[in-house]
């Protein structure tokens, strides 16, 4: 009996490895876990986009209400695809969206918003090398963060927000935080 188990052991190890490799097939190597989850938002003080009429974006603007911070840029192709959905979120009024115009000419960022619509409550300009965005641990645009009332980052979404991401992931988290 004992010896039969010993013969089976390599097979069991092999099956175990297969399990790991199979799981690995479906892991996204681009999904880097953020170390900033549950930490306070970084200390930022960003200038406004020219002619937008707000005073830019500071850390204190991310306190007192649940908000969605969205990193975008006029150069970012995926942001164009995401934009109509952000407009929809704004129209629904479920959460204020704060924009960070990352490694962009603020004028180009403003023109882009005029062309595609402006879903943001506030926008801060973060031209290259994008200190504020790096403080948020940015890996690409678009990237969005759910920030709670105390100004802590609670969730990070890398990539486009679409209907599925919004309804299945972001909105439930936001609703829970707004309770």
């Amino acid at each position, binding site marked *: 009996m004992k010896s039969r188990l010993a013969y089976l052991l390599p097979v069991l190890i092999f099956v175990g490895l297969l399990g790991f490799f199979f799981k690995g097939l479906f892991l996204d190597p*681009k999904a*880097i*876990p953020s*170390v900033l989850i549950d930490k306070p938002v970084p200390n930022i003080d960003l200038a406004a986009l020219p002619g937008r009429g707000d005073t830019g974006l500071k850390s204190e603007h991310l306190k007192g209400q649940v908000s969605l911070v969205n990193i975008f840029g006029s150069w970012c192709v995926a942001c164009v695809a995401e934009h109509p959905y952000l407009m929809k979120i704004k129209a629904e009024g479920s959460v204020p969206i704060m924009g960070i115009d990352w*490694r962009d000419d603020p004028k180009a960022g403003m023109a882009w918003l005029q062309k595609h619509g402006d879903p943001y409550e506030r926008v801060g300009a973060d031209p290259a*090398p994008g200190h504020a965005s*790096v*403080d948020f641990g940015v*890996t*690409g645009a678009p990237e969005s963060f759910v920030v709670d009332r105390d100004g802590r980052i609670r969730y990070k979404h890398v990539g486009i927000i679409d209907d599925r991401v919004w309804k299945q992931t972001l909105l439930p988290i936001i609703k829970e935080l707004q309770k």
Partner: protein
Amino acid sequence: MKRLMLALMALAICSPALAVDPGEMLKDPALEARARDVGAELRCVVCQNQSIDDSDADLAKDLRQIVRERITAGDSNDQVKQYLVDRYGDYVLLRPPFNAKTVLLWLGPLGFAIAAFFIGRAYYRRQKQEAVALSPLSAQESAEIDRLMKDRN
């Protein structure tokens, strides 16, 4: 053949191109050398198996600039790395650090070697014991045989 040798030699002497362009370099060569040392150990989070010094990605360029800013501001190499680890996690280091999360990664191979040693030793010992089993009968066994033989008589 000669051509092949030449081609191989050419391959051997060429070094991988760096993405660092002269405009980004620090004027002080000592500080620039430190920026290179740090940059070579930081992962470009866009193109993941390249260091920020090797990558042409815009974000890698920004990070190179930020590394140089930190160095100019007087940070040590380790402080610069920590600055990025605070934002991107251990992931940004190309050489995984030794800590509670990576202990299995570092010590796992050693653990397997030790386990293999003990399993192997147990296996050979058992083989030896089986050989021993063929050795002369114990006193108890002889007594048992004597008893059986007596019964027969």
